């Protein structure tokens, strides 16, 4: 039997061995010429090529567009404008009065996005942590509850936006319920604060399961004996959370924070379908501004849209680097202890 197994294995791997033999000689020659570091670069090349084509090249193209002006969409047909588009986005006569800014709606979108990031990411992380802690306990039908929290993640963002729109609309399900119990209907999405809160709430509902899952994986990796030792010492639950759970959850938490921040800065689809950026510009976020300027407007301005997206990308890079730096500092602290 073992002989048959070895024979089958040999047959299956034969093409691979043949291929490896074929590459052996040229690779040895290349290693002699390039050295060990050169070989590392050689093996990284396919990945870097994909990264270059699909990330670096479009990024370069975007930067090039941001330095041009005109109505033409082809780069070759556009006029070089230097930093003119950035200047247009960032110029205000009086920075305390948004209306004095050349592109006041860019600043409005920037302010809305900043507020959204702070509120949504904070609430999302608190709720995702609480959800993960609950789902980590010995609950009845635990798998069912995990599925319930994860289910919205499977929905398309447009579907999420539409579901909640049908609930919160003037003629929506919520108002039908209010009328049924004898109350007056409310035009929820025309209230600036409620519309903003709805955008925050709906995006949390849609992504909570994903982040809770990452944190749950982290919680399950924490050794049980630490909790048993704390229990024997009579440590209070809050202290256990702050001294054991949270520090050991930090690597996962860091991933969650970085991903949540990036997603929050890029908020678009669910919010756009739900509120359309309204009422007024109360939920106009940066990505929608870029979409409006670059694509939706009848007279499109790709240069301005590209400049706004480069600025947004810059903010994301800064935030990510900051998070990574904080993570490294925490790691170093933990090692010193």
């Amino acid at each position, binding site marked *: 039997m073992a002989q048959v197994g070895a024979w089958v294995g040999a047959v299956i791997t034969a093409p691979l061995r043949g291929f490896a033999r074929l590459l052996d000689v040229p690779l040895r020659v290349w290693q002699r010429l390039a050295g060990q570091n050169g070989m590392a670069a050689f093996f990284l090349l396919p990945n870097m090529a994909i990264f270059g084509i699909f990330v670096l090249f479009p990024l370069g193209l975007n930067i090039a567009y941001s330095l041009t002006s005109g109505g033409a969409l082809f780069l070759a047909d556009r006029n070089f404008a230097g930093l003119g588009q950035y200047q247009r986005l960032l110029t205000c006569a009086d920075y305390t009065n948004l209306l004095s800014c050349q592109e006041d709606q860019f600043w409005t979108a920037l302010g809305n996005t900043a507020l959204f990031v702070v509120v949504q990411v904070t609430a999302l992380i608190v709720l995702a942590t609480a959800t993960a802690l609950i789902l980590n306990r010995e609950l009845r039908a635990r798998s069912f509850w995990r599925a319930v929290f994860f289910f919205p993640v499977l929905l398309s963002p447009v579907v999420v936006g539409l579901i909640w729109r049908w609930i919160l609309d003037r003629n929506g399900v919520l108002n039908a319920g209010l009328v049924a119990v004898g109350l007056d209907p409310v035009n929820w*999405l*025309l209230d600036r604060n409620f519309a903003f809160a709805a955008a925050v709430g709906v995006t949390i509902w849609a992504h909570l399961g994903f982040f809770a899952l990452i944190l749950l994986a982290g919680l399950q990796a924490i050794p049980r004996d630490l909790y048993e030792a704390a229990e024997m010492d009579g440590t209070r639950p809050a202290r256990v959370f702050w001294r054991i759970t949270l520090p050991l959850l930090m690597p996962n938490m860091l991933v969650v924070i970085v991903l949540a921040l990036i997603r929050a800065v890029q908020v678009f689809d669910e919010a756009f379908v739900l509120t359309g*950026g309204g009422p007024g510009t109360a939920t106009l976020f940066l990505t929608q501004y870029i979409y409006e300027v670059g694509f939706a407007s*009848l*007279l499109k*301005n790709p240069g301005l849209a590209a400049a706004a997206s480069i600025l947004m990308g810059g903010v994301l890079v800064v935030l990510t680097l900051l998070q990574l730096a904080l993570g490294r500092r925490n790691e170093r602290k933990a090692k010193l202890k």
Partner: protein
Amino acid sequence: MTKHTMVLALAASLMASTALAGDVRMMWYSDGVEGEVMKDLVARFKAENPGINLILDEVAYKVVQEQLQIQLEAGQGPDIARVTNIKTLAPHWLDLTPHLADPAYWRTNFGAHADWMRVDGSDAITGFMTQLTLTGGFANATLFEQAGVALPGKGATWDDWVNASAEVAKSQGTAAAFAIDRSGHRMTGPNVSYGANYIGADGKPAPVDAGTKAFAEKLVGWVAGGQMLKDTWVAASGSTYRAAADDFINAQIPFYYSGSWQIANLSTKIGDGFDWVATGSPCGTAGCSGLAGGAALVAVKYTANPTEVAKVMEFFAREEIVKEFSERTLFLPAHAGVAAKGGLNWQTADKNVGAALDVFVAASADILPAAAALPAWKWASPVYGALVNRISQVMAGELKLDEAFAKIDSDIAEQVAAAK
């Protein structure tokens, strides 16, 4: 599998994925039932022209608005497209003149709107209007009757209509008295009726004038006063288009200002739910103007098969085809011969439709020169966009009217400068 069969299979799979000589792709969107009518006509064209493979690509209106321009700028896209942003994209249209059997037929029957779809100063034949549209109002006659309020007659002003509709709304408990689609285009007829003229002496956009200010002030007041349905304009930002047709269809508003292209939509969806009538455009201080427009079927200059494209265009521009298309889609024809002969047999059992179409035909005589000039004016789009963007900010309480007017001027100026 023999080598021969493999080559054949490979060839077949390549044929399935690439366009062949003789293929003509037509990008088509529908507001109402015209997609179904078009499918029927395409089948007839194919039977008549077996050598030309006409492919009808039905897409959403948003695709035409947002993606077609990008395709065209890249020198790609369909061979023929149905568009409403006709003038802005005019540099991409094909001059069909050398490919047409009888260019004189086109100039005679479609010449009145030829400037709408070609660059300034050109005499090219690039396509034809599939229908003419005119902005105007619709009233829910049943709600007016139930409320005991008489429908305002010819010459009634915007104030008359809003006041009468507000009475109906109060009596019948509707969500609001009226709504106008969230669109700068839709706001323009009323602006012109109050004396607005968007075109400056140099052909560029003029600063916001007293006419636009007068109607904008009224509109904002009607939203603040609850007469105009707030959702349509306020529950969105930027230049996003929002129609209020569903609110009219669901009897949530007794009066709705949109345009003639809604007739088939209202007829299909309202059915015998209630009686409705077209009202034409309410009057302002300068007149009772709507804004003409429509959709054009245009040939794209990047086509590899201009001769076949011309054959397709000639088929759909035939007098009998235009007549049939108009009768079945309930669109106003843009063909001079069809319009002059009259006698269109509108194919509907809905008694509201024929009367509504007659009202729009009559209202076309009320279009003021300042409105008539706009479809062929290349800067109309930035003006429409800026109007809807800033006026809805005023309605949402984010700007004062004076600030909005200043912003409209600067937005337009920046867009004009950026487009150079």
